């Protein structure tokens, strides 16, 4: 039986990185993801984990060091949030375009001003177009499982892209749950890169790209995202075999088959929505839940299959000012030629609590912007 430990979301991320055989970590602490690096520090200094931790002076440098370490052939990890992720923005592009399969945990948090340290997905959704794979977790066990699975996807030779594993700050990062610490032997062994910086086999990486080559490189990244969806499904099956847990990487459906209304959500809000679905089902309302685990690549075909012809309520814990919820916009685009009726709901911005009641009421009250806490 695998060991079960009471862990916070952040500790869960750190233990997963350790068991994923991460060999280089570069990080600069930021709330609410700081305990990830604190835990890894302790594991390394106690000799429980064999890795080099670079205590860099900024998140920009953290990502740069991860890219360098990955390019030189090591499995690499970092953790950040909010302003830290924003500060990495340039290097996030670099990681994706350099095809370095770095994995990063992101404890989602609002971006100031004013200073707000609470949950909000706008930090990672702002990085939507960097080329990174993005997973959104709904439980602490799922954080543990997804980090290892993310390496399997990222390092797959048909993919070779960096991946971020996101979870709502404080709601998941600082709460505690029992976590089954499945070992990853046979599922994720030492990193075996298909290329690396090597003085005996010199090549130049990242020099000037003339337009036609640049276009080709960008096209190859798009194709890698397309292929990643298939790889993700394979990894799900393998992980099920390893752990007995079905951990979705693309979408998760809950009571959708006979549903009239389907709620769409990501992260901790989706966890709460699941409770709301059960509660409404008890009142004979036919509601279902479509949880999006992967925002990039966007599982468009699955979304069309589940949502076509339904009444759809999309919950966003972020907003793109001047447009609306990012998830809503993307879902609407995916269903542009379907019969679905789609409405947006903005909830939980800057850490406003999202309860079962919030979701129940929001489905029927038809308010778009839910800023009060519904008790």
């Amino acid at each position, binding site marked *: 039986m695998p060991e079960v430990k009471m862990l916070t979301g952040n500790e869960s991320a750190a233990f997963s990185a350790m068991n994923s055989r991460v060999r*280089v970590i570069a990080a600069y602490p930021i709330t609410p993801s700081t305990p990830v690096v604190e835990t890894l520090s302790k594991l390394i200094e106690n000799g429980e984990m064999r890795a080099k931790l670079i205590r860099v002076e900024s998140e920009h*440098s953290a990502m740069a060091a991860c890219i360098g370490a*990955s*390019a*030189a052939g090591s499995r690499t990890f970092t953790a950040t949030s909010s302003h830290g992720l924003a500060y990495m923005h340039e290097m996030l592009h*670099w990681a994706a375009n350099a095809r370095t399969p770095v994995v990063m945990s992101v404890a989602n948090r609002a971006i100031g001003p004013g200073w707000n340290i609470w949950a909000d997905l706008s930090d990672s959704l702002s990085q939507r177009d960097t080329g990174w794979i993005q997973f959104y977790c709904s439980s602490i066990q799922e954080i543990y499982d997804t980090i290892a699975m993310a390496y399997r996807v990222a390092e797959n030779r048909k993919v070779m892209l960096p991946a971020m594993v996101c979870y709502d700050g404080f709601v998941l990062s600082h709460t505690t749950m029992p976590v089954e610490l499945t070992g990853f032997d046979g599922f994720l062994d030492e990193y075996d890169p298909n290329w690396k910086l090597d003085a005996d086999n010199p090549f130049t990486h990242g*020099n000037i*790209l003339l337009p036609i080559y640049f276009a080709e490189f960008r096209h190859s990244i798009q194709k890698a995202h397309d292929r990643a969806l298939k790889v993700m499904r394979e990894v799900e099956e393998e992980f099920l075999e390893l752990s007995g847990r079905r951990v979705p990487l693309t979408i998760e459906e809950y009571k959708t088959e006979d549903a009239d209304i389907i709620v769409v959500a990501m992260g901790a809000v989706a966890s709460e929505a699941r409770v709301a679905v059960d509660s409404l089902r008890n009142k004979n309302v036919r509601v279902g839940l479509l949880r999006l685990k992967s925002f990039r690549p966007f599982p468009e075909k699955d979304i069309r299959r589940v949502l076509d012809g339904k009444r759809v309520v999309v919950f966003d814990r972020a907003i793109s000012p001047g447009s609306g919820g990012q998830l809503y916009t993307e879902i609407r685009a995916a269903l542009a030629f379907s019969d679905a009726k789609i409405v947006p709901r903005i909830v939980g911005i800057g850490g406003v609590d999202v309860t079962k009641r919030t979701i129940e009421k929001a489905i029927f009250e038809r308010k778009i912007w839910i800023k009060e806490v519904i008790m």
Partner: protein
Amino acid sequence: MKISEIEREEFLLPGNAACHGCPSSMALRTVLKALGGKAILVVPACCTSVYMGPYPNSAIRIPVFNTAFAAAAATASGIRASLEMQGDDTVVVVWAGDGGTYDIGLQALSGAAERNEDIIYICYNNEIYSNTGIQRSSATPYGAWTTTTWKGKKEHRKDVAEILLTHNVPYVSTASIGYLGDLYEKVRKAREIRGFRYIEIHAPCPPGWRFPMNRTVHIARLAVETGMWILFEYSEGRFSFTGASDLIAKGKKKMKDVQEYLSSQGRFSGLTESEIREIKKYINDRWNRLVGIRDHELPSFIRLSAQNALG
């Protein structure tokens, strides 16, 4: 060391895309020879990222990883850590211009130096932000014309080599493309030391400084002979002048009038008499400061300068 004693094998290939008379390519050619072909180079945005040539070609015969402008020292730290975990002792070398070193890259440089990362950081200083043309950098000297200081720069340059001295790293030195034998020896020496090593190479740029391309070496030497650039080496607690600067310090060679250096380049053609006096004062002050470091050894110099700052 005589130039004829330098390694013959070429690691920077001829026919690369550098300007004629380019000091950076002269320096890189020498540095790569001194490294002996067993190194990984990290290059941020700078002239070198252009003249190494476009994909799929490269003029450099060792692995090169290009990185973002601000990220060179951090990228190199990551590569070094990765190699260390694999038991690989390949030398990791940053090759950056003064824009990427003095300005946008200073934070990462300072961070890597403070962590005493086992890398060699080499800055080729052409005293301009030349990644995008001929703009001012914080390494541009007082009075120099650039395309963002049309009437001459109003501030003195800062000195990153001196900043690095206060980071408690094992090795800091300055070099010049006018003295390639000296540069070669310094890189060879740095290669044998572990921990953070910083080498800064003075690199006169013909299009940027407005002088004919066949005068690069001549002007580089004039900079040292007039005290506008000083060759020194700090290694394991000892600070000393080297080459021509050492001869000047020992009184074996007379320091030339800076006027000869200033009038050799178009970038200083608009200087007034009072501005020339200011440059002479700068040379004098800096020379005395470095003599102070040499005579007091480094730790007491840091204490002294702290006391001076407190009045």
